């Protein structure tokens, strides 16, 4: 399959640089640190590399990754990539008339693009008819065009006007003071992004300062002064870089989503626009960075002709690491919805690749609706895809589908987004304690997973052993351990590392299905979920069972991708136990079939689950088991320490105390993390609520906070409640204890108790409140489960029992000030 072979690339045609494509050879800027530290040496020193700005490696490999994922998860063919390499001749069609139109229309929203698509489609339709369907669109993953190599997922500048002169496109910007290029080190202002020679500054700088640097002009402007920028010398045209043009909306930036060759030989791409903050409904917000862009959900098809060159739009993480991509680096953290004018963070690729993929493809194809009619026969490869997304078609606002049902699923969620990005999210500087809190969250995935290396190796060996041999016999692994010992996390981590091996071509591709027993409405639904995950079709569970039986036991192969091994991870396996245990039997029976290629990994808490099952099931479950023992305190300490690396917020003993305490009780890593997080929260609360304290003092989380957090987590608050309850309730409880000591029976009736209470009252000079009041008090105590009692309707026959040990009660009541005599009776 093509996922192991690299994507076919168009041969680089010898650059004969036709006259109507005047993009100059863009000399690559030397590796220059981006922001403040931009050393730009004179162009004379810069060695122009071969002829094209080399496509940055990461982009390419990323596209390969997405390709693989497409194959594995969605099982639609990558046959969309046609391999007609060597015979591509660049025919540069004249600039199509509708291109300028597009650009004008870009301001107006999505419906226009659809119109445009229509126009184009009708055009192609005619052509198709003329050509008697011999020619068709050819899709590529990568196109070498006009000296540049463009692949799907790349970000490029797009010309805004047809006459955009690009000859004088400077790759290096001029100094703002002397208006000359080169000659010495330049520094970039973090506010206006202007470049300055170090020696042109007043006073001149010797070296590039660390951290942010703001030029004198911006500083002056901030102070409210009237600042005059130095004017360019007479006759010299101020040239602007592509970046500046983009930020003043004279250029567009676009992300290439697909590339194809039209029937007439011209190259087209479908792009996803980026916008600058000024172009959004909310305008530029105070926390926006200068180089910030928003990704939109607006698509348009354009000819490759309009592409200027590469730019690099990065996520905040990449942006922070980026150093030598030159001037064309932009930051993009949010997606902007052009219909709803709302913002949404872009989900991180690592976590939810598949969903992300889904989303983009969805948008992709809903735009192409009309295409399918025209080119039904042509685009056979996409037919399946179309099927899947017919439901999504309903997502035009006219036919609104309910958001919580499956059909409208893709629609409703786009609506969610903030109108403005809240300021505190972006411009808030985290304190150490807040950092600690964030990193201790259960939801944050740690960079490394300590203490489970042995188990992870075992899992890896198991999976590799199962899928690597050509036979690929089905196997089964049972993993057990108490909650919070990293069972699911380890399996998923193994899966992640295997993915990268698949990408590297070491391991054969496989499909992976993850199911949680507790999240199924009924055990039988698991068939449906498995079938849907494998094929994308939704059927009833009975039908799914039949189909899966066909697939696994009889080896019926429905499509060509079907023969890859399938790994099934079932979390909370014990929830699948039904009365006759047929679900578990079926699932564990499939791996034993010769052609199944199914690997089952079951996870549950109890060690003896197989023994509790019917013998025919436990024998199928096999002997391969893996136990996740509870963490001991050293391991817990390591886990916490690993997360808190580099953050100075905890005292060392505090962590040790927490981990020892948890290890003694359960060995649950989640508990340990939560205790530490709670302790950090308490410390943070203390710091923030005490306004009198000077902020300078460093606040570490100490023993007292951890102690308080442990108290809160492990102790029932009954003693406090007993201490603060009403006087008669205390007497009631004392009478309960007294009764217990007198009779030795834990259970008593209300009648007996009332007699004891009245006895206590008369002996100590308190008026007896009356039976009904006493009954009410008893019921109240029962409500908060200090007592266990029957309902009050049975009155004097009501049975009562203490829910906590009598020692707790005596402890709580022993030094009550209003009733000092209570101790006598306990």
């Amino acid at each position, binding site marked *: 399959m093509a996922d192991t072979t690299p994507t076919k690339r168009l041969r680089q045609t010898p650059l004969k640089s036709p006259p109507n494509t005047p993009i100059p050879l863009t000399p690559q800027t030397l590796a220059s640190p981006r922001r403040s530290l931009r050393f730009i040496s004179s162009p004379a020193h810069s060695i122009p590399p071969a002829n094209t700005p080399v496509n940055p490696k990461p982009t390419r490999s990323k596209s390969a990754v997405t390709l693989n994922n497409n194959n594995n998860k969605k099982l639609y063919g990558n046959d969309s990539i046609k391999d007609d390499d060597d015979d591509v001749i660049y025919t540069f069609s004249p600039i199509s008339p509708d291109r300028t139109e597009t650009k004008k229309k870009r301001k107006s929203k999505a419906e226009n693009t659809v119109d445009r698509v229509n126009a184009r489609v009708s055009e192609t339709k005619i052509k198709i008819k003329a050509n008697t369907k011999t020619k068709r669109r050819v899709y590529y993953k990568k196109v070498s065009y006009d000296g540049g190599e463009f692949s799907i997922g790349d970000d490029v500048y797009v010309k805004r006007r047809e006459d955009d002169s690009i000859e004088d496109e400077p790759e290096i910007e001029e100094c703002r003071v002397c208006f000359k290029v080169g000659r010495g080190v330049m520094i970039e202002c973090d506010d206006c992004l202007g470049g300055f020679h170090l020696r042109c500054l007043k006073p001149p700088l010797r070296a590039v300062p660390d951290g942010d640097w703001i030029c004198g002009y911006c500083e002056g402007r901030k102070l409210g002064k009237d600042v005059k920028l130095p004017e360019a010398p007479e006759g010299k045209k101020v040239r602007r870089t592509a970046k500046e043009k983009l930020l003043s909306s004279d250029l567009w930036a676009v992300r290439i989503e697909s590339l194809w060759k039209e029937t007439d030989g011209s190259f087209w791409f479908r792009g996803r626009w980026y916008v600058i903050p000024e172009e959004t409904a909310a305008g530029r917000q105070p926390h926006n960075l200068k180089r910030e862009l928003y990704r939109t959900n607006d698509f348009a098809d354009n000819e490759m002709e309009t592409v200027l060159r590469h730019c690099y739009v990065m996520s905040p993480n990449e942006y922070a690491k980026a150093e030598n991509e030159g001037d064309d680096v932009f930051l993009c953290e949010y997606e902007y919805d052009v219909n709803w004018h709302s913002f949404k963070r872009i989900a991180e690729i690592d976590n939810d690749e598949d969903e992300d993929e889904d989303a983009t493809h969805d948008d992709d194809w809903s735009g192409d609706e009309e295409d399918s009619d025209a080119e039904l026969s042509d685009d056979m490869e996409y037919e399946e895809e179309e099927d899947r997304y017919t439901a999504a078609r309903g997502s035009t606002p006219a036919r609104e589908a*309910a958001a919580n049902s499956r059909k409208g699923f893709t629609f409703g969620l786009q*609506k969610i987004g903030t109108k403005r990005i809240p300021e505190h999210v972006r411009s808030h500087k985290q304190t150490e304690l807040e950092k600690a809190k964030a990193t201790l969250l259960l939801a944050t995935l740690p960079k490394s997973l300590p203490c489970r290396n042995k188990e992870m190796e075992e899992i890896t060996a198991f999976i590799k052993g199962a899928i690597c041999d050509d036979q690929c016999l089905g196997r089964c692994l049972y993993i057990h351990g108490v909650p919070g010992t990293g069972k699911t996390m380890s399996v998923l981590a193994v899966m992640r590392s295997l993915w990268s091996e698949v990408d590297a071509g070491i391991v054969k591709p496989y499909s992976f299905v993850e199911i949680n027993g507790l999240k199924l409405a009924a055990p039988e639904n698991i068939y449906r979920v498995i079938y849907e995950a494998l094929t994308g079709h939704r059927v009833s569970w009975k039908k799914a069972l039949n189909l899966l039986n066909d697939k696994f036991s009889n080896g019926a192969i429905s499509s060509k991708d079907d023969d890859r091994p399938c790994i099934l991870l079932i979390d909370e396996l014990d929830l699948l136990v039904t009365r006759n245990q047929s679900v578990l039997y079926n699932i564990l029976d499939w791996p034993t079939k010769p052609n199944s290629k199914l690997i089952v990994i079951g996870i549950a808490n109890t060690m003896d689950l197989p023994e509790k099952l019917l013998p025919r099931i436990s024998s199928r479950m096999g002997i391969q088991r893996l136990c996740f023992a509870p963490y001991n305190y050293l391991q817990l300490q390591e886990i916490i320490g690993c997360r808190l690396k580099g953050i100075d917020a905890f005292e060392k003993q505090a962590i040790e105390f927490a981990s020892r305490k948890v290890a003694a009780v359960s060995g649950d890593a989640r508990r340990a993390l939560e205790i530490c997080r709670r302790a950090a929260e308490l410390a943070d609360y203390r710091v923030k609520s005490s306004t009198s304290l000077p902020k300078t003092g460093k606040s570490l989380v100490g023993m007292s906070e951890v102690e308080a957090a442990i108290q809160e987590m492990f102790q029932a608050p009954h003693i406090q409640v007993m201490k603060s309850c009403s006087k008669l309730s205390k007497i009631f409880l004392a009478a309960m204890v007294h009764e217990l000591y007198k009779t030795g029976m834990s259970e008593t009736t209300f009648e007996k108790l009332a007699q004891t209470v009245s006895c206590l009252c008369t002996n100590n000079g308190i008026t007896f409140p009356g039976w009904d009041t006493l009954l009410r008090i008893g019921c109240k105590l029962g409500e908060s489960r200090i007592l266990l009692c029957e309902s009050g309707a049975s009155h004097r026959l009501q049975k009562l029992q203490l829910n906590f040990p009598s020692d707790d009660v005596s402890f709580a009541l022993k030094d009550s000030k209003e009733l000092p005599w209570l101790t006598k009776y306990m």
Partner: protein
Amino acid sequence: MVERSVDEALLLLRKRLCDLHFIFSVFSDSPDSNYSKLKFIVSSSVTEACNNSLLLLGPRGCGKIAVLDLVLEDLLKEYPDMISVIKLNGLLHCDDNCALKEIARQLCIEHELMFSKVASYDDNSQFMIAMLRECGLAHKTVVFVLDEFDLFAQGKQRLLYSLLDAMQSVSSQAVVIGVSCRLDADQLLEKRVRSRFSHRKLLFLPPQKDDLQRLLKHILLLPTDSNLSRDYVTDFNSRISNIIADKRFIEITDKLTDSDCTVSNFMRFLFSAVSCIDSKSGYMTLENFKSALSTIQRQPKLDCLKDCSILELYIMVCMKRLEVKEQESYNFNSVMKEYKTIHDSFKTSDYYSHNVCLRAFEHLLDRQLVEFADRGHNQCIEYRSVKLLISHSELHQGLKSNRSCPVSYLKTCMI
């Protein structure tokens, strides 16, 4: 003029007594109060994008929901458009399926989406998880309030599991707040659910004596800067201060708080006191509080006994005599036999027929002074064994307070 002031003042007082926000705003200023602790936890989830789950525990009537509402209202004002609140009640939604549907419905309403009633459990749970994710990406916090939390912790606890599991795996921003009066609510959670729960607990306790004093003044003293007549307000306030300082008043409040010192009980007491105000004079008196106390501390069983007819009392006395003779189980017929012996030995003037007695017996059953001991339904009333639900001393007290009770009757009882 004065009358209008009185009406307005009464209106104001009643309004205050029903306004939980007004009541609990007294306690919200100090950093040790549950209000500020809760606000810190929820707002840190909003600003720092973290997930939390916490329990609000405490006896009924201590203001768990009231404080929570206060916090949520303030936060909604502070961060408009960034918090959506989903409220569930264990009494209404303890079934996982219907709880999830309700969550989906409220999410749809909150975000103006279409909601379909027929969506399945899977659809709804996927929708919820997708929504949590999207809301997290859009910096929106979802707050789940689960009232009567203990009732959610029944059965397989699918809802809690999927909620808490979503919070530890998805990049979401959510707070799950469980509210329960059961102190052991977190022990009810299943192991794997408990492991995912963050175990923050806030304990709500009934207020101390001085807090109640503060509350009293906060509520009863009329504001001087309102449109009420000035003289009236100063007069009213000085009288209230006098009453509050009065020893007899302190006795009354002590009596009240001795049995139940929660805020809700105290408010009920004040409300009935305010309702007793004589609208002619327009001022609160000590008498008002006294009568309020007596209306609050009713003794329903004793009141019941007061209204019983002589025959009904006879029947109960007979049952008591049987019990004294250590006859454990008895039914109507054996009670009738006892009734006959009393009649014979004391030669009372009135003897009622079997049917009349049966009618009286049924009355007793209706008032729950007497109860069937078994659950059998196929027997007729006469033969089913019954139990007396009030104790002997209560019966004694009731006989004494009953006006129509003859003296000879008491004698029989004294045996």
